[in-house]
């Protein structure tokens, strides 16, 4: 088998195996599978004997022609219709061609050919038609037999039409006599009209030729093209020629198969590309709307970020002011922590869970349930657009539930990834910056300086002999408290400012993550991509075969 044919066939195999939801292709696969099987079988039989089928209406003289070719009364002929009931295979000794129940005749008149004498295609016995179809399927070359009376009968033509291009066909006008020369033009013209190509045309009178061969006395009558037909079968149909005929049958079938595929499947590739773009568009739109919804909720809550950043700061805060800040933070987050102890009080909130993720608490291990009604609604809206468009393009219903589940899962994954990854990093980085050693040191300087100064006053006044009054301690404490309060306020304000900037930056991260595409309509996108790939293969194989 030539390489290019093998590769074409394997590509077609992949198409024939398609069982997806795209109807235009799935409707083609049964026919494609049948044709592939036939192509393979024919390709394997290139070196076998050439199989010729004699086909024609009842009584045109198919059996007589066979007898004349063999030069013997092999097949039964009769005036009464129908005569041949089962296909008879005339073949060289040693070969054993034919289906079960067929009659096998061995002879050596035509040693490299197998000739099938088929039953009539048009009599009242309908089973005969079936066996004619079988015989035609098995054949490589069809000798269409017609008499002047019977060459335009629908019964025979209806058998030939489906095989146009797949078999080499030759016309044999039996019962030729001087009067019927006009039949040739009429017959060939009508065949051409119906798209059947004829390789050759013979006018013969098999009865006379048979009589001559059997040595009948009045043998010297005009036998028309019989000698040419014999030489055509004997010599022209050499092994090489037979291979060529078979090869041309194979390529005829292949071209037909590919043309069908191109017309019914390949031609729809542009539609599928449009559909893919449509899906991508809606995928983006859904992501954008979901971003707006998620951004409005979790990411629009300063508390969450204050909570997270406060926690990080209080984990790292050092020094006097830092310690005070930790105490303050503990008091401030008390309600939130109390809430986690009480069931059904804010525990299931997506924000709480986000906060937990952001602060790497193991308290909430389950994923965030972001599937609010609004998100489901938004998805369902776009889903209906997508479903309609897919239906218009010939897709069977796809698994919408699975698509939604994948989508929600996708959002949660991405959201969690942002919260655990870049968002947390930003929060931690800011907390680190705020609680870095120099900052904490600078923050500690004023109260410590004041304490130092106050201590110095106490000590120096003591040695100077002045005992400081209680008022002094009261005032010093007040000043220290004011300093500390101002410091804590400054720290809080900067923590809030940092939380705000972390939130802004993380929102951008979320936007990037959600709008990266490929989040919604998973089943639809994969089905369309698969169909588009198949359609492309169809178009490509068909265009390659043209060359």
């Amino acid at each position: 088998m030539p390489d290019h044919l093998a590769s074409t066939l394997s590509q077609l195999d992949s198409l024939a195996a398609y069982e997806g939801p795209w109807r235009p292709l799935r409707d083609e696969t049964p026919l494609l599978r049948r044709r592939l099987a036939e192509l393979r079988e024919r390709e394997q039989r290139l070196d076998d004997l050439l199989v010729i089928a004699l086909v024609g209406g009842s009584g045109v003289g198919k059996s007589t022609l066979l007898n004349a070719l063999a030069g013997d009364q092999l097949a039964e002929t009769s005036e009464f219709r129908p005569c041949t009931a089962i296909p008879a295979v005339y073949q060289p000794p040693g070969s054993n061609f034919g289906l079960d129940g067929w009659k096998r005749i061995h002879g050596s008149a035509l040693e490299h050919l197998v000739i099938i004498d088929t039953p009539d295609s048009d009599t009242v016995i309908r089973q005969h038609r079936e066996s004619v179809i079988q015989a035609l399927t098995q054949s490589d070359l069809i000798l269409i037999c017609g008499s002047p009376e019977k060459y335009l009968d629908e019964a025979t033509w209806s058998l030939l039409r489906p095989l146009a291009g797949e078999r080499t066909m030759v016309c044999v006008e039996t019962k030729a006599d001087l009067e019927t020369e006009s039949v040739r033009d009429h017959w060939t013209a009508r065949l051409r009209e119906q798209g059947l190509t004829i390789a050759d045309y013979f006018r013969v009178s098999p009865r006379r030729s048979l009589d001559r061969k059997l040595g009948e006395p009045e043998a010297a009558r005009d036998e028309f093209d019989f000698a040419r037909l014999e030489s055509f079968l004997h010599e022209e149909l050499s092994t090489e020629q037979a291979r060529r005929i078979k090869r041309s049958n194979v390529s005829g079938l292949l071209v037909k198969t590919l043309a069908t595929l191109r017309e019914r499947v390949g031609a729809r590739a542009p539609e599928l590309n449009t559909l893919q773009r449509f899906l991508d568009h809606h995928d983006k739109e859904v992501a954008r709307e979901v971003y707006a919804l998620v951004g409005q909720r979790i990411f629009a809550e300063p508390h969450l970020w204050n909570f997270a950043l406060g926690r990080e700061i209080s984990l790292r805060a050092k020094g006097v002011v830092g310690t005070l800040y930790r105490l303050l933070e503990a008091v401030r987050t008390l309600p939130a922590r109390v809430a986690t102890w009480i069931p059904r009080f804010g525990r299931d909130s997506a924000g709480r869970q986000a906060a937990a993720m952001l602060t790497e608490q193991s308290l909430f291990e389950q994923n965030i349930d972001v599937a609010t009604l609004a998100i489901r609604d938004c998805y369902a809206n776009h889903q209906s657009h997508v479903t309609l468009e897919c239906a218009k393009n010939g897709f069977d219903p796809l698994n919408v539930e699975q698509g939604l589940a994948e989508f929600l899962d996708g959002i949660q994954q991405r959201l969690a990834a942002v919260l655990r990854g870049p968002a947390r990093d930003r929060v931690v980085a800011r907390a680190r910056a705020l609680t870095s050693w120099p900052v904490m040191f600078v923050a500690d300087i004023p109260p410590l300086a004041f304490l130092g100064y106050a201590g110095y006053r106490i000590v120096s006044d003591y040695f100077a002999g002045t005992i400081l009054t209680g008022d002094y301690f009261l005032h010093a404490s007040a000043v220290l408290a004011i300093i500390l309060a101002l410091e804590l306020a400054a720290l809080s304000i900067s923590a809030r400012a940092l939380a705000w900037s972390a939130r802004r930056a993380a929102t951008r991260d979320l936007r990037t993550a959600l709008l990266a595409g490929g989040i919604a309509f998973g089943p639809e996108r994969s089905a369309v991509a698969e169909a588009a790939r198949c359609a492309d293969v169809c178009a490509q194989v068909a265009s390659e075969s043209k060359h």
Partner: protein
Amino acid sequence: MNQRDFEYGMSGSVARVDAAPRDAALGRALSGFDENLRRLRQTLAADATLTREVFEGSEAWSNLLAYKLVPHLAGEGCLIAAVTGGTNTGKSTVFNLLLGAEISPILATAAATARPVIAANATRAKQCLEGKLVPEFSPSPMDSPARVVGHDSPPDTLFVTTAIHLPDRLVLLDTPDVDSIDTEHWEVADAIRAAGDVLIAVLTGEKYKDDRVIAYFRQALASGRVIVPVMNKANPADDFAVARKQLAEFRELVGFDAPCFVLPHSFAIADNFSRPIPALDGEGTLFDYLLSLDAPAIKRRVYRDSVKHFAAQAGAFLDHTGQVRNALAAVVDEFEARAALAASKYDPAPGAAVGGLFHEYVQSKRSLVFRWIGAGSRGAARGAALVGRTISGAFRKRATLERRETPPTDKDLHAAHAKAIERIARDLAAGYIQTARNLREPASHLVHAGVTAMQIDTAAPAIVKQTIHSESISEEFRQHAYRMLDSWWHDHKGKRRILEALDGILALTPAAIAVPISMHTAGVGVDVAIAVAGPMVEQFFARVIEYQFGDAMFDFLSPWRREQQQALEASLKEHLAGPCLTPLRTYLGVFDGNIMSELRRFHESCLII
């Protein structure tokens, strides 16, 4: 010949007198049936698939009706002998031999005769040209033989030629073939041959057992025709032994017995058309045999059997049409059921708290004083609630780290509803497209055409507009609920009094207790506190009671929901199912319409007669 003419005239009139009243009734039924059948065919003509589905296999008997039974009633009956057979068997040759001259052109190639030729004597030919003899064809004088074999003239052309020696009661027809690849010929041949009383079956050794040929003659026999087989190109050896056997087989297969004729094979036939066609057994020629046939008896028999045959076939046709109709109706039902199912998925939210609405309503029904009391106590309760909510909200906010979703505005609500409805419409449309793809013929292509024409982008807004009547859904719901409450208010006097008085009783009772106590003790104390706390407590209980009634108000809500769903369903049917089913409905209308009922009526009266 004159003698025979006379006899024919006599017996014909006798036959007519016998059967006159019955014939007249039958005639009305037949021509009524024919007329309605033609109307049905015309109505369905626009759709080839449906026409095929409905009329498949009806050609034989509908031709019988149109070309035989109805013309017979016109009283122009004469024995029509049609020359029939497969392609290139020599029909035209036999026809010419019967006429004694080359009237119909003979070609060596197959499927030559494309248009029928009728030969009759001058009187009949004139009738024929006037369209009285074979009224369904448009007659045309045969000016040139070439037109018979050409395809330029319209398919219903009938060429008329005059043959002086034919008697008044016999006309001859030459017909196209029934088995060549020119299927157009089949129709012409089938139609014209239905008009024949006697069919001259031209056979050859090759074609006497062909499927189509046998099938055709069986059908002809079933409708009472006389078949006269002629074996053409027969081998005269052994006293036509081969032809004899072939003819016997043919007669056995078709199932009749009649004298046969043979035409020996001869190349010289075209030179001399005056030769007779001899009978296979015994004396006589085909022409003499045709003349000897008892025309009135045959016509009567043919007529009777034709009517029987027709009645049985027409019955089967009507049943078949009924099945087609049911198949179409099933599709309509399925599409409408889908629309109903889709509409039931619509769950309209009113956007207004039901309990609150009820309170509002009760409040509006209260008298001025009670309304003030109600409003005052409600204002006090609201103020208290606001303070409480602010405090708890601050706590909750920190605890939940999340804002509550704000209640939607009217505009949001409208947009959400519009989106939900459009979504339902699109999902339904997708369902329709997928269903249409899985349908079977004859509905499939009709629905497919409708589905392709469906404009979902324009239909969806129209559906929204039809379902949502006003801009404000809350307002719409409010009005609807008020209407429902009005009737409830009207029906339940007792409950309504309690509700009306509720504020007053609960607000004034503590005051009524407090005032005497404070007058009695002449001081301000617990009693005044009770009087102030009274409205608060009252409001609490009033709200509890009203909300409880409000829950029961879901009964008031459901009619609104049902109405909305019904509006949506109607609208879906109008804008989506409608366009999808328009082509199908058109034809369903035909099947349900008066053409079919007329056909049934005429068929029944045929059966009765």
